[in-house]
């Protein structure tokens, strides 16, 4: 008989989500599920025009409607009229001009959502419609007057590195277009604001990625001290970057303060498309110079990111783009010019991959062109160029992260390819799916590759620290942090960390709110590293205090004590007591702030140690293409990802599979279509997301080479899955069709004409 030890939910185990049970029952309270006594509904009036001057706003019609309690415009904003993550250039409500379709102009609070809709319809805004600036090149060439006092160029960044006159015999170039992708989280924006009884402050339950940054921006606009604005995380139905900016936070709070009643706001799907920033559409030109052996000698590149009407995080997205020009390859010489510009298109900002998605689509297209030009296999050409720890990047920064890139590529290549398509395949397995458009003979299979590196955490001197508190009492631990749980599973990981460090099993976490220091944003693949580091640090401090306590009780030097499973043990003696027993009638609480190492701004030539760390990944895509109709079915994605250390295998697999689906979406179906500043498809009927029938088989290898710089050896895993999968799929389509396709998403007409 063997005795199986009970698996504890420590680091390395597939611990289950603590909120899983409530989520499968429909009990979990998303921010849209919240209610308060005497609550009003809020709604927003938005501009139908991409660019117009506001001549007048007549609110009288709305005020006359029974059930309407409040109508507000820019005139009613008590504090700063604008907000923004990096530059405060976006109005709470448009005042003189509207600069994109969907820009907020007014808001109402009423007794019913339908009353709100009728009130909005009764507001008369007279616009002088202006010609929108929609071509990003016209923002650069100054052919147009600035559409914003801050000018039409949000940021320009060049990178000049090495010998700019270097030449090499093989030259390939291409111009790549990346469409505007939407994060399309399922739980649309929502918030519930409850004013304090004395009117001096406000509590806001909101689905967001970064409570403290929201609070900072809200307090300024509301003219309240930050401590009078208390934010609590409402359950978040996905984020993917779209909740990093302010959307309805200020509007909801302001309506609540004006009415002295709780106000709930919730966007519908159409409004959500207008209510948050999107992934930047970009045009990227690259020219690679290489030797006949395939080794890259120089890269020239030009990036244009269309930031839309307001800057959001455009300047940081630009930096991520240009600094990832080389991809995960060595490149001694580079000349890069990059622009993030302002247009009257929808504002763009953070989305999973953050500028690197765009850069990767271009550099991987270039690697395939280089493979063709040199006659070297597409896997081999990548292997010959891969970057290693210790190499200098085009920013002059030395790559310090562990870089198991060769393993990523080789392990991906070693995974089995899918079986040949059967003679009589199931109709749903063919491109076109239930539409039954194709027969077996219409299908061609293709294989393509994509490899990428992605920076982790924030860059350019930003100290995006995280804070956590650990309280141990009577064998139980309570954690406190402000880390936004958006679905990624930090609420699973944090207790795992505490169990591992402290040898306890019963770990809970307190409400996620602003009653503790900032955790920074749930973005940039950073929370496992940053908030994980903070929880780890707080738990270690508590452990030291526990050892001191036990040492004092038993007359042992605390340095001799260690945690073994759920016991405190004397490493050179015989003492062994359970943590439960050791902490009986003992309470200790410690708060820890985790900071990553400092980074620097880039100089005018794009030189500087601007990034903290990097993660690597390889993707191989297999697609079936109906070439004549231009329809694609992604059959299989094989991937090996550098994760540092696997802290929760099931969570990591979930991130990888989910990221791949989003990258697949960008490759073949997801695009916000904007014509002359008008969004044409703000709905799930016309903005298509992958369904269960679009999901490919996914083969995964998690490459574990713990990074000594990472608090637990683990790298963030959120973004890497969605970056190089897109170019891999597009490369597979090129492979199947023989067509040169340099844009994504690939549309049927890009294939069949």
């Amino acid at each position, binding site marked *: 008989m063997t005795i199986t030890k009970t698996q504890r939910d420590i680091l390395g185990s597939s611990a289950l989500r603590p909120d899983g049970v409530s989520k499968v029952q429909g009990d979990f309270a998303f921010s849209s599920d919240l209610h308060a006594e005497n609550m009003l509904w809020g709604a927003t009036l938005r501009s139908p025009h991409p660019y117009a001057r506001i001549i007048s706003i007549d609110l009288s019609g709305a005020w006359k409607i029974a059930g309407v309690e409040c109508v507000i415009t820019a005139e009613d904003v008590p504090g700063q009229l604008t907000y923004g993550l990096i530059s405060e250039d976006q109005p709470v409500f448009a005042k003189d001009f509207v600069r994109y379709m969907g820009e907020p102009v007014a808001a109402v609070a009423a007794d019913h959502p339908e009353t709100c809709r009728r009130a909005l319809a009764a507001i008369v805004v007279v616009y002088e419609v202006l010609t929108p600036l929609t071509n990003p090149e016209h923002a650069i060439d100054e052919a147009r007057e600035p559409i914003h006092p801050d000018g039409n160029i949000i940021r320009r960044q060049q990178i000049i590195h090495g010998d700019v006159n270097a030449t090499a015999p093989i030259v390939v170039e291409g111009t790549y277009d990346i469409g505007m992708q939407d994060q399309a989280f399922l739980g649309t924006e929502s918030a519930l604001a409850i004013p304090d009884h004395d009117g001096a402050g406000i509590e806001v339950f909101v689905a967001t990625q970064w409570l403290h940054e929201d609070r900072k921006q809200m307090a300024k606009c509301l003219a309240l001290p930050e401590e009078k604005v208390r934010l609590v995380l409402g359950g978040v139905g996905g984020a993917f970057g779209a909740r990093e900016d302010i959307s309805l936070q200020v509007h909801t709070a302001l309506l609540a303060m004006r009415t002295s009643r709780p106000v709930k706001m919730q966007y519908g799907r159409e409004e959500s498309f207008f209510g948050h920033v999107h992934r930047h559409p970009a045009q990227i030109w690259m020219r690679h110079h290489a030797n006949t052996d395939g080794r890259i000698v120089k890269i020239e590149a030009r990036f244009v990111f269309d930031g839309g009407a307001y800057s959001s995080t455009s300047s940081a997205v630009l930096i991520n783009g240009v600094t990832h020009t080389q991809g995960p390859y060595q490149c001694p010489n580079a000349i890069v010019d990059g622009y993030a510009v302002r247009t009257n298109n929808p504002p763009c900002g953070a989305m999973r991959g953050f500028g690197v998605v765009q850069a990767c689509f271009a550099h991987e297209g270039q690697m395939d062109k280089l493979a063709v030009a040199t006659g070297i296999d597409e896997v081999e050409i990548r292997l010959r160029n891969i970057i290693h720890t210790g190499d200098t990047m085009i920013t002059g920064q030395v790559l310090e992260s562990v870089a198991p890139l060769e393993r990523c590529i080789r392990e991906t290549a070693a995974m089995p390819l899918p079986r040949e398509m059967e003679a009589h395949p199931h109709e*749903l397995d063919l491109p076109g*799916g239930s*539409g039954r458009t194709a*027969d077996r003979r219409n299908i061609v299979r293709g294989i393509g590759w994509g490899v990428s590196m992605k920076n982790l955490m924030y860059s350019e001197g930003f100290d995006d620290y995280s804070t956590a508190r650990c309280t141990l009492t009577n064998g139980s631990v309570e954690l406190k942090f402000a880390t936004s749980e958006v679905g990624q599973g930090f609420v699973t990981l944090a207790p795992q960390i505490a169990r591992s460090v402290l040898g306890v099993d019963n770990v809970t976490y307190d409400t996620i709110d602003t009653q503790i220091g900032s955790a920074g944003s749930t973005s940039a693949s950073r929370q496992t590293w940053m908030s994980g580091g903070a929880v780890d640090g707080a738990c270690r401090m508590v452990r030291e205090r526990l050892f001191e306590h036990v040492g004092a009780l038993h007359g042992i030097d605390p340095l001799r004590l260690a945690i073994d499973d759920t016991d405190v043990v004397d490493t050179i003696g015989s003492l062994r007591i359970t943590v439960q027993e050791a902490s009986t009638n003992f309470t200790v609480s410690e708060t820890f702030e985790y900071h990553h190492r400092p980074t620097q701004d880039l100089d005018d030539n794009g030189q500087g140690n601007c990034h903290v760390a990097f993660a690597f990944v390889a993707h191989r895509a297999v697609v079936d293409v109906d070439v*004549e*109709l231009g329809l694609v079915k992604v059959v299989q994605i094989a991937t090996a990802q550098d994760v540092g250390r696997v802290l929760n295998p099931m969570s990591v697999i979930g991130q990888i599979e989910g990221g791949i689906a989003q990258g697949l979406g960008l490759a073949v179906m997801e695009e916000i279509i904007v014509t002359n500043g008008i969004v044409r498809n703000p709905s799930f009927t016309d903005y*298509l997301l*992958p*369904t269960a029938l679009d999901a490919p088989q996914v083969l995964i290898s998690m490459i574990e080479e713990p990074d000594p710089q990472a608090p637990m050896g683990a790298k963030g895993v959120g973004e890497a899955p969605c970056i190089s999968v897109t170019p891999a799929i597009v490369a597979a389509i090129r492979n199947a069709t023989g067509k040169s396709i340099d844009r994504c998403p690939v549309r049927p007409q890009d294939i069949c004409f």
Partner: protein
Amino acid sequence: MPVFIPSSLTDATRLLSNNPSAHLVTGGTDLMVEVNFNHRHPETVISLRKIPEFQHWNIDNKSGVVHIGSSVPYATMEHGELAQALPALAEAARTVGSPQIRAAGSLGGNLGTCSPAGDSLPVLSALNAIVHLHSETTSRSVPFAEFMVGPKRNSRLPNEIISGVTIPLTNGWQGYAKVGVRNAMVISVASVCLAIHDGNVRVALGSVGPTIIRGSESEAWINSVGLENVTPSVAQEFGERVRAESRPIDDHRSTAEYRRHAVGVLATRLLLRGVQR
């Protein structure tokens, strides 16, 4: 009372006469989208879901017709006897929205809305379906070709209710194909229904014109060639001719050029499937 749920056709038509501005709703899958997106603010609604004959269907082999009540959900058409009798309708039904939509949506809704992208409509066109309409005092039956008169326009009078359709059975192959840029739950970019009866081909095109387009000239050509003479190159030419009969537009879902191309390709493929070559 603004919501009526009549349990007979007589009651329904009377209610409509008395409330001419009422919205008719069966599954709700079209109307409620309009309401949710703030495009409609209904004040009176007549729900047709409880009228027994609207939920009824039968296959009359003697007369060679199938009758389908206007509230029969698409899910019922996807499998079983109806699918065996009308395979093209089954294939079209399977492409309507999601399983949830197919459990609620019905031919009455597709006909009432009459969108050129209505998935079942090319089938009703190719199969020469007859649409039955009733007012408080009249009843009439209209061939589909005369029923749909424009994009989202049909010849139903404001006081009439669609009770169902009669679809003649065919004695040859029938099939349907639809292009959308996703493998399921996708709105039609172009669709084709092809049916063979008494050795003659009929072809109808969706999403490539203001109405469903019957490819009459293509039909005449292929029927003069003869089905026994269909080769891949004949099918190719048939596709070219179908393509020429389409009248698509550019919109955010696709381009006119692609739609024209796609209906041609689908027509070629369906013809080859029909003759099993």
